[in-house]
């Protein structure tokens, strides 16, 4: 609790104690009024002051005004206890909500606390702490265990485990060693690292993310706009309604029925009506739900740039994926060995050895698949044939590795591969030995991600890619994506997305997921642009509405689940609060509800709505069923 909250708490306790005390002292008349004014003013002076200022500034109809009128009215009627109680409980509700907000904020900001305060630089053999802003690109900085990496860079010495949790929501530490690129904002856990910076502080990941969080455009969702419009008309409406309730029935009874006007009874009912109708529960809990929802998503490494995007995300019916970098890793790896006449491992070994001196990505992936140190003395007479492949003598055997053209050149008949990808045929001593399929690897969770989306009720998944048709269709069917458009140029992707946008119903939203590299126009064109693996890609951070901090496509489903939970809470609160209020208003107007029920309808509903809103923050366990996140 902060100072302000503590002061309010003391006021609440003090006036509550006085109330109890006064309850047991038999008093009457003017004296009683004066004594009851003490707890009333202790608890309510600031509300009265605010109401007064509101009238002065022509901002009459707000909660303070409602409370002031209701309590003054009650006191005027001699209902001192109730007048003070209304104020007391109102303050309790306010205190509660301010406490809940503070708690949620701390909960969120602790995790967003990635701002590095200093950088260590070595000067003349001793370490010096300086402002990270002053570190020039290319300088060597030292990161000690327990410290935050202040600036993006490449490790030149040392190895360690890095906690990137605040950036990606990933709880498993990342092992890093010399030559690895590390990003600012992650925490060095075990070893001392010497890092050569590759960016300025302002351009580093941590600064950019903080900038994104702090300047998230405050685009309001429809629900929020609805509530602020609602409050604008609602509060004056209930004030006039209460006035009518206080004046009309007595007048009617006096003039037309010739009976007693019963002023007191009707004024009391009107005051009850006022207390019930206070819109705090709505105006406070709806923005709070979005605040908590966006905060909770942030903790999971999903940055949402505004509550309107959270809302759109929850209505997503079509998800369009970019292929390379989004569903696949964009890295080539050996994906299979087919039609081999010799053992698969042996085949890869021959191919890797034959390609030993080549630096082509294909040969790199072969060497990686082989996995062992290569002894160059086994290789001799290497000859590269451009556009075909390579021949070499390995362990005394003549080996040819390359494409179909190479095989035909040597008159070796080869088996064509039916799968998508690059194929390396291998022949040993003039005999065909089989081929190795090298293709872009799917991301580990790509398939689960698509099925999780289908389980969430997404009606269509579409993949856009510049790849050849066969490769694209194969990937799509393996992943379970329904529609695929292949051989597209970047500009075609925009056209395709626009076509899809026109086909769908206006209430259904379309999300585009891309890795941010040359996707920017599509990201901004879609209803919701989701950028994957945004660490480092400026264009993605700029253009996207939702940024997934790590590369895991499962986060798409998670983001949608978080948004659905948040929106459900918002609607629960809207229906719950308005429902209870209408019920109590009817009871109040009919004279069945008294002031105490009114207090519940106001403060009780608000407390419940606030507690429900805070629930939007807890999204840790929102995994799609059966899939661990």
């Amino acid at each position, binding site marked *: 609790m902060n100072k302000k909250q503590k002061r309010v708490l003391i006021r609440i306790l003090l006036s509550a104690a006085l109330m109890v005390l006064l309850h047991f002292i038999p008093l009457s008349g003017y004296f009683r009024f004066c004594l009851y004014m003490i707890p009333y003013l202790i608890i309510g002076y600031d509300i009265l*002051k*605010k109401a007064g*200022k509101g009238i002065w*500034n022509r*901002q009459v109809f707000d909660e303070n005004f409602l409370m002031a009128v209701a309590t003054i009215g009650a006191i005027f009627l001699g209902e001192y206890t109730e007048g003070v109680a209304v104020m007391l409980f109102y303050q309790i509700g*306010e205190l509660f*909500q*301010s406490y809940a*907000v503070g708690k949620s*904020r701390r909960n*969120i*900001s602790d995790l967003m606390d990635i701002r590095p305060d200093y950088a260590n630089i070595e000067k003349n053999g001793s370490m010096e702490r300086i402002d990270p802003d002053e570190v020039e690109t290319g300088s060597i900085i030292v990161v000690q265990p327990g410290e935050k990496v202040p600036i993006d860079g490449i490790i030149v010495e040392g190895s360690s485990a890095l906690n990137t949790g605040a950036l990606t929501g990933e709880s498993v530490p990342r092992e890093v060693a010399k030559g690895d690129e590390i990003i600012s904002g992650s925490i060095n856990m075990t070893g001392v690292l010497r890092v050569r910076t590759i960016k300025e502080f302002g351009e580093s990941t941590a600064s950019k993310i903080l900038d994104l*969080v*702090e*300047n*998230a*455009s*405050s685009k*309001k969702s429809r629900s*929020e706009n609805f*509530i*602020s419009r609602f*409050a604008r008309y609602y509060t004056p409406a209930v004030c006039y309604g209460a006035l009518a309730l206080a004046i009309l029935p007595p007048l009617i009874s006096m003039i037309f029925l010739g009976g007693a006007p019963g002023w007191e009874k009707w004024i009391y009912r009107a005051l009850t009506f006022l207390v019930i109708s206070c819109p705090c529960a709505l*105006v*406070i809990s709806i*923005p*709070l739900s*979005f*605040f908590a929802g*966006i*905060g909770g998503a942030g903790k999971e490494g999903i940055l949402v740039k505004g509550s309107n995007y959270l809302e759109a995300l929850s209505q997503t019916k079509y998800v369009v994926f970019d292929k390379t970098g989004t569903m696949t890793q964009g890295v080539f790896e050996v994906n299979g060995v087919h039609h081999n006449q010799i053992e698969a491992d042996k085949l890869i070994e021959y191919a890797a050895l034959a390609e030993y001196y080549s630096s082509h990505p294909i040969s790199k992936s072969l060497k990686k698949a082989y996995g062992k140190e290569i002894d160059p003395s086994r290789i001799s007479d290497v000859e590269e044939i451009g556009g075909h492949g390579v021949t070499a003598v390995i362990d005394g055997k003549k080996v040819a590795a390359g494409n179909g053209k190479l095989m035909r050149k040597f008159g070796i008949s080869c088996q064509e591969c039916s799968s998508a990808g690059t194929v390396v045929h291998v022949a040993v001593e003039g005999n065909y030995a089989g081929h190795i399929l090298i293709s872009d690897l799917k991301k580990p969770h790509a398939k689960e991600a698509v099925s999780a989306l289908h389980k969430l009720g997404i009606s269509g998944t579409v993949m856009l890619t510049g790849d050849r048709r066969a490769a694209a269709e194969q990937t799509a069917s393996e992943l379970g994506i329904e529609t695929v458009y292949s051989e597209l140029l970047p500009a075609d992707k925009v056209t395709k997305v626009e076509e899809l946008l026109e086909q769908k119903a206006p209430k259904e939203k379309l999300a585009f997921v891309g890795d941010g590299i040359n996707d920017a126009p599509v990201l901004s064109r879609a209803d919701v642009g989701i950028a994957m693996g945004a660490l480092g890609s400026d264009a993605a951070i700029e253009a996207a509405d939702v940024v997934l901090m790590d590369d895991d496509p499962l986060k798409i489903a998670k983001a949608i689940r978080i948004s659905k939970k948040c929106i459900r809470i918002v609607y629960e609160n809207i229906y719950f609060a308005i429902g209870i209020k209408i019920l109590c208003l009817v009871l109040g107007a009919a004279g069945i509800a008294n002031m105490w029920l009114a207090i519940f309808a106001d403060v009780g509903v608000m407390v419940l709505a606030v507690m429900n809103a805070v629930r939007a923050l807890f999204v840790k366990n929102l995994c799609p069923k059966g899939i661990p996140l």
Partner: protein
Amino acid sequence: MKKTYKIEVDCANCANKMEEAARKTAGVKDAVVNFMTLKMTVEFEEGSEPKAVMQEVLKNCKKVEDDCEIYL
């Protein structure tokens, strides 16, 4: 020109009210209140004097929400 100020406000709705009030102030092109980080980012119109404008912004915010504070 854009500047960011630290603010103090209790409820999310009050933050929205402040944002609206700040936007309506003369000399302010756009204003965004971030309730999560308790920060107000104000974009000033060409040629306006941020210090003077912010005094007005503070005054207008106080009108709609007495309990708020902007640390200038």
